[in-house]
């Protein structure tokens, strides 16, 4: 099995899917000869041509609205939003329109479209190249939202998104693109949307997390072994629908839940995971459901000390683990 980075897995998955199905097209800013600003589509215009790899005008509402139009007319578009922070002009077409196509037409129309969005911080991106925007989409019935954190999951979940008959938002943490490497089988496979995965089994407590924070949580779990704390790490992978059974099973088994996220905590994914655990595991818990996230300030300051103070880190997670384990 070849080792790949997340960005390589994304690129090869799009390439393989486009070879398999010629109704798949790519739309986005700079996705053509530039290959996308993160090089997710590097070389694809050479193989598939300008009709299938479309450098769009700088206008996110039309990127997503046009993608939706092609989707209801027989194509399977993959739209790329250059940075999550720039998805706002397209919210109307995604949250407002695409999410309700099937429901609002009594099933007469469907929108098999994928929207890939690099998100997240810790890259000195300041207020407008660091945002986590998952909650907007995860709140919306009619959308699915996946957030793969490893090359293996990036391939399997992107393939599922592209093959889905409904709109799927694929959130790729931009810091993981080149940072995270892993084995990726060359043959095609899919990972079902809505399935979490235990990335590290443990018995004392469970960390529920996703995205870049998965890797920080795994590091913290490793550090906790020094204090003989055995931490389980559950990667949510899909943020809508959340894998409620997997969440409840793990929380009930270890009896302690620590939810870690990079997004600001108020009204967020961690709120929802906490609610699920509260509803389903109340009598199995040995400690308070605990959340670790950044402070409630606009994500995230550009200057380096403040950015570091904003971001959760393996050390901050370890501190939360230790505190919860002692209870």
């Amino acid at each position, binding site marked *: 099995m070849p080792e790949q980075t997340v960005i390589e897995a994304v690129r090869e998955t799009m390439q393989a899917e486009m070879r398999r199905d010629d109704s798949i097209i790519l739309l986005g800013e700079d996705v053509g*000869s530039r290959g996308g600003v993160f090089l997710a589509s590097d070389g694809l215009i050479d193989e598939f041509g300008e009709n299938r790899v479309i450098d769009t005008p700088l206008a996110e509402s039309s990127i997503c609205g046009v993608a939706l139009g092609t989707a209801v007319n027989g194509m399977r578009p993959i739209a790329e939003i250059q940075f999550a922070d720039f998805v706002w002009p397209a919210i109307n077409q995604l949250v407002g329109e695409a999410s309700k196509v099937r429901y609002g037409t009594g099933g007469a129309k469907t929108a098999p479209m994928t929207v890939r969005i690099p998100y997240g911080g810790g890259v000195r991106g300041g207020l407008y190249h660091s945002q986590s925007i998952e909650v907007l989409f995860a709140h919306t019935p009619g959308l699915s939202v996946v957030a793969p954190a490893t090359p293996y999951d990036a391939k399997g979940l992107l393939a599922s998104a592209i093959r889905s008959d409904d709109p799927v938002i694929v959130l790729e943490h931009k810091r993981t693109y080149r940072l995270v490497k892993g084995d990726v089988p060359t043959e095609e496979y899919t990972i079902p949307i809505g399935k979490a995965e235990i990335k590290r089994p443990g018995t004392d407590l469970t960390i529920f997390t996703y995205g870049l924070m998965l890797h920080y949580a795994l590091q913290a779990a490793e550090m906790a072994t020094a204090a003989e704390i055995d931490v389980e790490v559950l990667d949510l992978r899909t943020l809508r629908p959340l894998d409620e059974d997997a969440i409840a099973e793990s929380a009930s088994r270890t009896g302690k839940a620590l939810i870690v996220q990079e997004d600001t905590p108020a009204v967020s994914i961690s709120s929802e995971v906490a609610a699920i655990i509260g509803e389903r595991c109340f009598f199995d818990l040995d400690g308070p459901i605990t959340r670790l996230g950044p402070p409630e300030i606009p994500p995230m*300051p550009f*200057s*380096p*000390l403040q950015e570091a103070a904003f971001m959760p880190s393996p050390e901050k997670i370890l501190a939360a683990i230790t505190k919860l384990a002692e209870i």
Partner: protein
Amino acid sequence: MVLSRYLDERVWLLNRQGKAAIAASAQGHEATQVACIEATDPSKDHYLIYYRQFTAMLALGTEPEEMLRGFLAKETEPMSAAKQFPLHGAHPRVDLFNFSNVIATQLPQAAGVALADKLRGSDAVTVVYFGDGASSQGDTHEAMNFAGVHKLPVIFFCENNRYAISVPLEKQMGIESVASRATGYGFPGVQVDGTDVIAVHEATSAAVERARAGDGPTLIEASVERLLPHTTDDDHTRYRSAEDIAHMSERDPLRITSDVLKRRDLLTEYEDDEIHSTAKKRVNVATDTVDAEPYPGVETMFDHILNDSDRNAEVFRNA
């Protein structure tokens, strides 16, 4: 212009040294920015800039140290206390601001600023800058339409460098000139050579006069050359042809301007050299000063969330 060029080059270098996280350059845009600002009145006019307005910032009196504090994210950075990318935030002395990196959001805001002036009977003019790429956003259309309806004192100033990162003009629009759109909104659109300080100054002066007289908006499109990649993160050899790159320097506004001035005997070789060496020294001094300054500490990251930021700070420091 010369100071801007040297400082801009320095910032690029600081990025390569790992000190400046990111930079977008104004190299190639200098003449148009200086000439436009010269035609306005900084004591009362409003400027909604975008990230490429490096020279405009200097022309409006921003000190090189202040610019560098933005790029190096230092404690006394005046625009946003280094919460934001360089050139984002609000200027401490003139009414210049740039709230976000989100392309074209400044255009409807500019219409609003101009509307407030109109409602209050002020004769201030609002100048809003944007690129050719930004002209594609819905916000751009909506802003121009609104300004046309209300005959607002606003100048829509497009710096057309023919590229939006890698996307060339012909993939951005089905027409050749952004200015030609103005007709559709009911106000004049003019195209000028952005390397020609006189032409830009004349076009802007006419637009300012029109706006102050209550006759409404003007769309100005200045054609310029982007001499460097989009930002320090970009590599334009991936999408610009070798020929295109080879011809870029023919449109270098610094060379063009100094040639014109020399031909008209308004500038001697000696004066030109003096300007260059003074600017170089100025940049060195500013770099040494700012490089030694501290980053903002953690405490101030809780400031200015809301008007009651003290309460916020208390809540979240304790969290």
